[in-house]
């Protein structure tokens, strides 16, 4: 069994407070940026094929807010929101992000992350996207992991099948 064969996204943990996702796209930087920042385009990919997006609000300016709401095929709703902290056209977007269904006892402050999306030319009309998720502390990252587990439980059954056999 190999891990992460479902795509070429690379997930790493550079520090105790960070999650880093890297992926290359066969499209020029300005298009990847558009697909990341225009609501009509974000709506088409952010649901990860697990449902559809009920709402996608983007006010792309520093201090502007964003909010994504996705509904899974089983009816489960997940919502995230945040604020734009820094925007460099076609290069970088920095936002805060909070999951709206945090487990009891976890404050928004503790679970809010700062996400930095960086768009870099990779040559041949290709673009490297890196997403750096920075939590305020290791504890916060673990809280995010906990909430992520809750959110992911709905469709984790087949995943469990995959892993349960291997991890005894």
């Amino acid at each position, binding site marked *: 069994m190999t891990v*992460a064969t479902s795509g070429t996204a690379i997930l790493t943990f550079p520090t105790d407070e960070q999650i880093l996702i890297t992926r290359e796209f066969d499209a020029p930087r300005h*298009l990847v940026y558009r697909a990341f920042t225009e609501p009509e385009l974000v709506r088409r990919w952010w*649901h990860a094929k697990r449902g559809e997006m009920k709402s996608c609000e983007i006010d792309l300016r520093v201090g502007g807010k964003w909010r994504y709401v996705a509904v899974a095929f089983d009816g489960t709703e997940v919502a995230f929101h945040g604020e734009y902290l820094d925007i460099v056209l076609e290069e970088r977007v920095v936002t805060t992000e909070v999951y709206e269904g945090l487990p009891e006892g976890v404050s928004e402050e503790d679970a809010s992350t700062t996400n930095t999306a960086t768009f870099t030319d990779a040559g041949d009309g290709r673009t490297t996207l890196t997403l750096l998720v920075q939590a305020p502390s290791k504890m916060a990252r673990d809280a995010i992991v906990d909430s992520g*587990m809750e959110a992911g439980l709905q469709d984790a059954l087949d995943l469990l099948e995959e892993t349960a056999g*291997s*991890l005894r």
Partner: protein
Amino acid sequence: MRSMARAATTADAFNAVAEPRRRQILDLLSGGERPVNDLVRALGVAQPQVSKHLRVLREVGAVDVRGDGRQRLYRLNGHALKPIHDWVKEYERSWSERFDQLDAVLEELKQEEEDDDSGN
């Protein structure tokens, strides 16, 4: 990224399982107990490298080791790590699925641009 085995993160179970090479070791051990030499061969990397990763995995309780004659046999202790392992895979998978969708959107955008160029 290669320096992830540094001291600050080695005691963290999360990092232990999130490092790609170490996940590979965990996957290899999921098939059963194996001696170090076996892992070195399967991974195709130098023994000191493998030993370093195994040490990290041992420190967080992800693997157990026992001596059998001159061999040291490693075995998965997946119970402690399973929730984290599941989460990492789930997180990775949901982003991979998003990016696959994004690929399709980008193909369309590229096509639109080409059509615009040829139309003008």
